[in-house]
């Protein structure tokens, strides 16, 4: 590992939550404006984080605590791997480990709301994992490598031009990962309630703060994968990711919450067929 890699990792771990937190602040402000409200300040997620961090520690059991750290560490690892331009498949697997940690934590307590949330979180993973894998396969077909660095080194034109349908499928995944409507079924964002707070029901104080922190990293990770579709320059990638993020907020505000069965049907039929058609087209055009 070179010094440069080490600096990249440190920058990701330190700057990641700052950017992610501000994005969530923008999300809350924009959502409020779309609903005709004034909205909280942009730095509100940081106030929430510090407040939760300073509250008393209440845990239901020891393992619950461990799973929160697992969720955080796996997500940070996945984001660092992306920043280091490593293997896409490994990034997807590590991300899945993080998701499983959250689910295990929710299953480790007896609260029915938490268990319900965990079941639905599993269904969400079942819905989005195939599409992430297909996206990795599609990128492989274009670059001849699963490495993220391959996208930066080998391509002359952005992936978006050759993989537009895969990109649309990934936008659906972004909604699921951000836990936004119509997919906010396992847990819900601020000021919404679904089975109390779903998977987060039994977490409180500092542990809830760690989960919020993980969300900031996770959002950056998913936006980073979306940014890969215009990786010819880092600014274009950031602009594409930001555009996807803003679109997401609008979708969240105009959509109703749907059921888990609708989610599976929609994501598997629409998402998988979009990806498969795109991959088939790549072969035909060749």
């Amino acid at each position, binding site marked *: 590992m070179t010094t440069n890699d080490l600096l990249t990792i440190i920058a990701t771990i330190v700057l990641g939550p700052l950017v992610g937190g501000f994005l969530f602040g923008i999300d*809350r402000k924009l959502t*409020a404006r779309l*609903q*005709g*409200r*004034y*909205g*909280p*300040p942009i730095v*509100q997620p*940081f*106030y*929430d*984080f*510090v*407040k939760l961090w*300073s*509250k*008393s*520690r*209440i845990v239901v059991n020891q393992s619950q605590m461990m799973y929160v750290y697992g969720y955080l560490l796996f997500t940070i690892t996945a984001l660092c791997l992306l920043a280091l331009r490593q293997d896409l498949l490994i990034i997807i697997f590590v991300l899945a480990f993080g998701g499983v940690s959250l689910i295990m934590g929710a299953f480790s307590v007896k609260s029915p709301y938490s268990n319900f949330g965990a079941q639905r979180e599993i269904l969400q993973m079942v819905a989005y994992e195939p599409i992430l894998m297909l996206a990795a396969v599609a990128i492989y077909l274009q670059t001849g490598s699963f490495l993220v660095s391959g996208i930066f080194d080998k391509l002359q034109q952005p992936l978006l031009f050759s993989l537009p349908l895969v990109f649309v499928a990934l936008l659906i995944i972004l909604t699921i990962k951000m836990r936004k409507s119509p997919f906010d079924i396992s847990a819900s964002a*601020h*000021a919404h*309630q679904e089975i*109390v*707070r779903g998977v*987060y*029901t*039994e*977490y*409180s*104080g500092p542990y*809830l703060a760690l989960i919020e922190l993980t969300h900031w990293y996770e959002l950056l990770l998913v936006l980073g994968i979306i940014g890969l579709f215009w990786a010819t320059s880092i600014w274009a990638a950031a602009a594409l990711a930001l555009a996807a993020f803003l679109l997401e907020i609008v979708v969240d505000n105009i959509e109703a919450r749907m059921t888990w069965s609708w989610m599976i049907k929609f994501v598997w039929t629409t998402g998988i067929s979009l990806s498969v058609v795109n991959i088939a087209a790549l072969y035909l055009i060749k």
Partner: protein
Amino acid sequence: MGLVDTARTKSPWILHYDCGSCNGCDIEILACLTPLYDVERFGIVNVGNPKHADVLVVTGPANRRNQRVLRNLYEQMPEPKAVIAVGTCACTGGVFHNCYNVMGGVDKVVPVNVYIPGCAAKPEAIIDGVVKALALFSPSNGKEAAK
């Protein structure tokens, strides 16, 4: 005022529990969350989970049937926490004070920090009450907010 105090006053998440109110005060609390008053601009979010809440907002008189639930909710909230009694019933029992099943105000069951009288309490009064309760989280800022 330190960072933690600032964060606590800027991000109070409220848990609303109806002890058996006539729904008048509940509607006024919900009115605070609408675009007209929009308490989220102060970081106030209505959560449905005691484990995430900082401020317990209670409406209605404490009665023998649900005092157990009220105490349970209060005990599940992590420290530091505050309790606000909204409406005359929650303060003293109100018109129900001499019913056979009513114990009186909410303070008969859990310690109350702020009383907001009124039947029903106005949204402006409720927001004022929450601000007073926030002063408890930051002692140095307390005098200013109390004025």
